């Protein structure tokens, strides 16, 4: 600046200032025009992933800021329907009634895009037992229905011949807060047990026939640790990061599978053939020899139409990036990445977005 000297007395000097100001104005204006903030809300389970995406995406596209609030899936769906956020995120797909409500209130369809995978696994604390236990679907359903009450019940003992199980009473532990993990667990039990399906059903909170409630994964894990002869279910990420002992579960092919990133992705791959066009699919008890049966997608919820075109374009690009390049950030955070076939289907689905 100091090098540029203006001669204010001359016509030339004045016009230079004018030109300089005009240029500055144009630069700032265009910078403001490109600056986009996308707001999203929902799933607490997927929060670490979306936060990581937001950071990495902002580094690549400094003009796009993604602001994600983990207020819970139910809250995310409500906010999306009310139109206070640009996108939502949920661990359980929206119901037909909710989709209809969104259509009516916002005048647009809502599309589901799976972004990553999670799983729930049985964790236990039996004094004197350090082995990895194998659980059959009947055993898990029986325990959570309160029908199987002793650890040495034949249904638990049979697949674990080498383990000496005590005759103690089983203490059942579940989540007390509404959660996608509970949704997945209940969804799995409904698929393998008609009695569970009829009596209890599927939801983020259910009417538990037995058991104590712990708040969050840490609450459930804490109760398991403190109460002998207890069993509870824990989210994959939490279990892996905290080195918690968990059991194998028998899948639809009859194999006992330990939950890990590979077996969870395998479940998604197994369910791809039967995937409905709107991606609202449960992948619990999915087919596949290596598929872990208590797996689930987590979804981004994106409106088919948006009025603000700048925002809409940015959202579309963010979504495309998340489904492709963004997938590399899943595994480090212990989310199972999407199978390639699912990503292809989703990129096709993106053509439905009217922007």
């Amino acid at each position, binding site marked *: 600046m100091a090098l540029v000297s203006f001669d204010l007395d001359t016509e030339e000097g004045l016009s230079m200032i004018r030109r300089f100001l005009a240029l500055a104005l144009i630069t700032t204006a265009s910078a403001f025009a490109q600056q986009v903030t996308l707001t999203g809300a929902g799933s607490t389970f997927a929060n670490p992933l979306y936060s990581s995406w937001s950071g990495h995406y902002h580094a690549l596209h400094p003009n796009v800021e993604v602001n994600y609030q983990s207020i*819970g899936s139910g809250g995310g769906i409500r906010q999306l329907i009310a139109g206070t956020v640009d996108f939502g995120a949920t661990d359980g797909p929206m119901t037909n009634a909710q989709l209809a409500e969104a259509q009516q209130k916002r005048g647009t369809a809502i599309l589901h895009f799976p972004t990553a995978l999670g799983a729930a696994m049985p964790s236990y604390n039996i004094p004197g037992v350090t082995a990895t236990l194998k659980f059959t679907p009947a055993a898990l359903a029986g325990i959570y229905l309160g029908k199987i009450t002793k650890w040495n019940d034949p249904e638990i003992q049979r697949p674990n011949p080498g383990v000496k199980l005590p005759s103690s009473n089983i203490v059942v532990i579940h989540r007390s807060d509404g959660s996608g993990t509970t949704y997945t667990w209940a969804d799995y039990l409904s698929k393998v047990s008609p009695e569970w399906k009829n009596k209890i059903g599927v939801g*983020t909170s259910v009417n538990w026939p037995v058991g*104590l409630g712990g708040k969050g994964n840490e609450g459930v894990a804490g109760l398991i640790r403190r109460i002998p002869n207890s069993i509870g279910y824990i989210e994959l990420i939490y279990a892996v990061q905290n080195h918690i002992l968990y059991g194998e579960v028998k899948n639809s092919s009859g194999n006992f599978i330990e939950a890990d990133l590979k077996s969870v992705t395998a479940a998604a791959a197994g369910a791809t053939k039967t995937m409905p066009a709107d991606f609202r699919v449960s992948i619990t008890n999915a087919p596949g020899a290596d598929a872990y049966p208590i797996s689930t997608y987590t979804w981004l919820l994106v409106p088919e139409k948006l009025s603000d075109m700048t925002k809409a374009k940015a959202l579309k690009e963010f979504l495309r990036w998340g489904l492709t390049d963004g997938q590399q950030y899943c595994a480090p955070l212990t989310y199972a990445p999407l199978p390639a076939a699912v990503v292809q289907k989703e990129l096709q689905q993106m053509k439905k977005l009217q922007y």
Partner: protein
Amino acid sequence: MSNAVLATPEVPFESRGLDKKQTWWERLRKGDEVVHLITLAGGWSILVITGLLVQHLWVYSRLSRHAFGWHFLVDSTWDPVNGVFGAWPFVYGTVVTSLLALTIAIPIGLGSAIFLAELAPRKLSNALTFLIELLAAVPSVIYGLIGIFLLIPVLFNVVPYVQKYFGWIPIFNGTFYGVSYFSASIVLAIMVVPFIISISREVLISVPVSQREAMMALGATKWDVTWRAVVPYARQGIMGSIFLSLARALGETMAVTMVIGNVAQVSTSLMAPGYTIAAVIANEFTEATGDLYLHALIELGLVLFVVTMIFNALARLLMLTMKGHEVVG
């Protein structure tokens, strides 16, 4: 009366000023009207906030109120999947834990307050009071963690003995999992004790010396002075501290949900797990889908509001009857 007024020179002067009706403008200039308006606005804001709160709770619980009516209060089923909601286990848990917590906290709190105000050396009293006021500022999640990591392991060692000798009493029987009404009540008691101590101590200290001297002149012992002159004089303030504690216990969420077990059932045994209104709202509100479910949770908030009001009313009634006794005695 008029003699007394004339005896003090300032009073007639002021009353003369009041007799000559001041205009609104004069009062405004002197500042009285300003203060009046500001305090009036403060008072009204409380009414408005409470009114809005009740209105909101009432309107947004309509679906649930229409669907279940009064059954909502007495039914014990809480089934979000099938849309059946009953509040009884939560109401029961809230009332039981709060009352038990106060039963534990009042003797400890009042005892400490009397010690700090009347018996302890002033230096010790000030130091301890500072610590107690720090306790009142500890976030409730910390108390929950204390419950989990310190209290429950201790209870796991103590409760079996209690059950061995007193297990025949219904409130002590059943399997003990660590998390229970009892654990929640103890954590609540620990949380509210600082309120009782801190407020009661202030009130006890501010009792006029003349009260003590009058009692001592009658030849009373130090304890007699404290118990029969100072404490009754400070009773209103002490009751105030207990009301405040009760309100905190009824509404406490985080610490309770960490140690109560979160099971929607009604048990006679204090060793059994249970649930409270505030805890279930905090647990389920974020993931609640469906309007009826949301309205049922908001109706729980309304119920909590009413429970708190009933408790306050009962406590005030209790105080009135106590005053009555005093007059008779």
